[in-house]
């Protein structure tokens, strides 16, 4: 079990390291084409990363170890999330169940690392981004955990692999109203958590409207490269999670070369479809005013809450 889980973990992390920049490239390309631009190609994020890794890192006076250690923590936490989420297969370490609550807290470690980097720079922009980022993270939390609750009720466990396995056995449950409500809520939470439209504009160049970009404004060179890679891996893992819950077919239940290959291919297809859909949706959306975001999140919370209560009443019959 342990060896299988280790192989699967390695495959998932490697896949996400390679795929997540391509996913972001694809999303940018889709947006560019839909907006009538040529676009830089899906490999552009990789070229950016290569360039950044080769450059020197600058550190301003008065900043601390957070500037250099924070990016490493962010990448490590994103990699851990990639292990915990069943992206390619559902085999887990016996002592490390892929508990959704643990996954959420590991994500939050990355969130905190980013927020501290924003504060450490000592500029008004960094503090602003950090403050907004944490406000949104705090308000997203109830939606995420209540959605987790809703998903856990049918299987009686918050373990992701059990949830996905149960969905594989009973495909009708994927389309049940309870599951759909929870997934919509979770999707909105993912959009907010990863800083996509309409919560944050990932391609903005105006400091005053930035959230994510404002926090990394002061980082450069390999620090910035790690920060970008870490954030992209988060996006990839969370989209992969939504994909695995929405379309559980093709996920490897055991570790053989064939099942891993199928799982990997399905993952690529799911990420490509979800990423393109998200990017296409973003073209038609304007960024929400910051103080309207809580309304969006309150809406998603209501959906998650309905999912939980509905599932209790459905179980009761």
């Amino acid at each position, binding site marked *: 079990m342990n060896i299988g889980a280790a192989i699967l*973990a390695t495959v998932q992390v490697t896949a996400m390291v390679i795929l997540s920049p391509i996913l972001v490239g694809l999303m940018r390309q889709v947006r560019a084409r839909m907006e009538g631009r040529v676009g830089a190609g899906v490999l552009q994020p990789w070229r950016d990363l290569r360039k950044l890794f080769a450059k*020197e890192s*600058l*550190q*301003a006076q*008065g*900043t*601390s*170890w*957070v500037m*250099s250690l924070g990016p*490493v923590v962010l990448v*490590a936490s994103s*990699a851990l999330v990639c*292990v915990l989420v069943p992206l390619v297969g559902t085999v887990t*370490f016996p*002592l*490390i169940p892929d*508990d959704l*609550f*643990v996954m959420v*807290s*590991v994500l*939050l470690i990355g969130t*905190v690392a980013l927020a*501290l980097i924003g*504060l*450490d*720079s*000592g*500029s*008004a922009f*960094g*503090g602003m981004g*950090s*403050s*907004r980022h*944490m*406000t949104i*993270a*705090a*308000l997203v*939390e*109830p939606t*995420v*955990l*209540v959605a987790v*609750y809703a998903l856990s*009720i049918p299987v*009686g*466990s*918050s373990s992701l692999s059990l949830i996905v396995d149960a969905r594989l056995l009973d495909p009708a449950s994927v389309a049940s109203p309870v599951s759909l409500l929870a997934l919509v809520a979770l999707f909105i939470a993912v959009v907010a958590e990863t800083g996509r439209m309409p919560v944050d504009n990932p391609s903005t160049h105006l400091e005053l409207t930035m959230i994510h970009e404002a926090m990394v404004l002061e980082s450069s060179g*390999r620090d910035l490269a790690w920060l970008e890679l870490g954030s992209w891996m988060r996006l990839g893992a969370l989209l992969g999670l939504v994909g695995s819950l929405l379309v559980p077919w093709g996920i490897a239940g055991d570790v053989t070369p064939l099942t891993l290959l199928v799982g990997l291919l399905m993952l690529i297809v799911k990420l490509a479809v979800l990423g393109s859909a998200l990017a296409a949706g973003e073209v038609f959306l304007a960024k929400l005013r910051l*103080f309207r975001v*809580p309304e969006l999140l309150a809406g998603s919370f209501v959906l998650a*809450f309905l999912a*939980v*209560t509905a599932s*209790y*009443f459905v179980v009761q019959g």
Partner: protein
Amino acid sequence: MTLVLGGLLAQLALTCVAVAAAVFVVPKRRALVAGAAVVGIAMAGAVTGVFALSGGHGSLTVPMTLPLGPVVLAPDRLGGFFMVVAGLVGAVATLYGIGYVRGPAASRTSWSAMALFLLALQMVPAAADAVSFLLCWELMAVASTVLLLADHARRAPVRSAALWYAAMTHFSFVMLLLGFAVLAAAGDGTGFAAMARVPADSGAASVAFVLLIVGFASKAGIVPLHVWLPRAHPEAPSHVSAVMSAAMVKMGVYGALLVSIRLLPGGPAWWGLLLIALGAVSALYGILQASVATDLKRMLAYSTSENIGLMYLALGAGLLLRSYGVTEPADSAIAACLLLVVGHAAFKTTLFLGAGSILHATGERDLDRLGGLGARMPVTSAAFGIGALGAAALPITSGFVAEWALLQSLIHAPATQDRLVAVVMPVAVAVVALTAGLALMAFVKAYGIAFLARPRGEGAAAAHESGLGMRVAMGISASTVVVLGLAPGPVARAAAAAADLSGVGAVGWWGIDLFGIDALLDPVALTVLAVALAVPVVLVSARLARRQPRRRVDLTWGCGGVRLSPRMQYTATSYAEPLSRVFDDALRPERDVLVTHAGESRYLVERVQFQQNVGDIVETTAYRPGIRWMDRVGVLARHLQNGSIHRYLAYAFVALLAVLVVVSL
């Protein structure tokens, strides 16, 4: 003589030694000698607690001259659990206090009061009947008031804080007295064993439950009875705040457990709902206030309200589920309550000691004037950072394990016959989640603003690291936060033994296994995995760093300008501004913006002054009118007594007539 009895006797003996040392040793060595004796009391208490927790028996009867009967001390397992917590917190805080105390906090009175305070903290959970409990409770209240008053001569807020504290703590005492009186009457005896015979579904039990819970909630800082916390914690010396927050308010949780599990087990469902409601309101209100507070110690005080709220919520969920006969999730919830107690004790001690070091080094409690302390106080920074991670419930700290256990037990409440559970449990999960989210924000703010970036005031710029004793104490408590987070298994076992819980245990040496609800967590395995994933990243970084070393530059990015001053950084107030706007209705901050124009122009601004004050809405809407009303009653009552002898004779005559009328009836 049993081990428990020996431990209790040792504590009493050490208390005498400590008081004698505080009184007779010369001021120069007083802190060291008296402090060492007080650490001894606390450690003896912790050891006695371990004996009691592992099933040891022993009873100590202290005869008294009061006509109430002797004080009987006989800790059971649950009491032992709390004795261990209080003992360890007391020992670490006193160790810190030896290097920390200055001026009035180092006086004879303060050290004697500290010894009595820590003794009382041990005696409350050890008490075996209501009278002993109340006497120890009162000793705890009085000793802590004396400690709180240490600096009263120099600072007026200390006096007002002590008044609020004394009033609230006596309100709590009166409620407990009434509650125990009802139980003693119904059970025909003041011993806890006699009281436990009262059936939980009787009317007397419900009346006693409400009275006792109100009393304990007032001590525990549950909203709306929390008003003394944000006043007393900032004004007390920091090591005393640490003991008050990490150990004393826990006695309010011990009391709630005592009533609901030991004295009146099997109560109706609404008891659980009452506790959940109190806990949820407290958790949310506490953390909201903490996230917008700018006074560091006030923020920590509100965060205590939040944490105690979570403990009450966990206990309430346990009682609610027990009343439906769902034993295993209920037991997990109660285990979560005890894990929260231990976790909170560890990280709150660390945070208050860290705040004390900041106060010691900068003379500032106001976050808006701090900044850049990470470079100047590396040990404090590391300890406070770990404490903050614990308070924000992030892995791998004690706070995370406790909140994980709470969430797991909440989501495993099965679909029962009652639809109430189907509504209450998701609300509870949402409350815990929002609380966790806001706690994250509050502690990122506290750590980031105080320790990162550049100093915002002169005090912070001139800060220095604290002395050896203080650093050692902070190191011990910070490492406890991490150790408890890595190895929660033994604590879970102790909790299961303390409250007689089924379905809670350990996996391997250190992991926690809620096997009753099929959930396990092994933080060590998770950490190993995380480290394995981080190693390649670090290696790549190191390789790149050899090729391209980091370069220091002078300024951060200022849109091309070079006028960046530390005043342009975000402060704690600005950090919480989006949040205080979102929760405007619950917080009602008062803002004043004063704009001075340059000359005649309406468009050129010379100066902008901004002032914000976030009061406590509970205090302004509930307590202030109450106090005004009592004042008016007092003024009216004064008319009764105007000094005229004729009037007093008339009173006596009227009273005599009244007595005669009553007798003749």
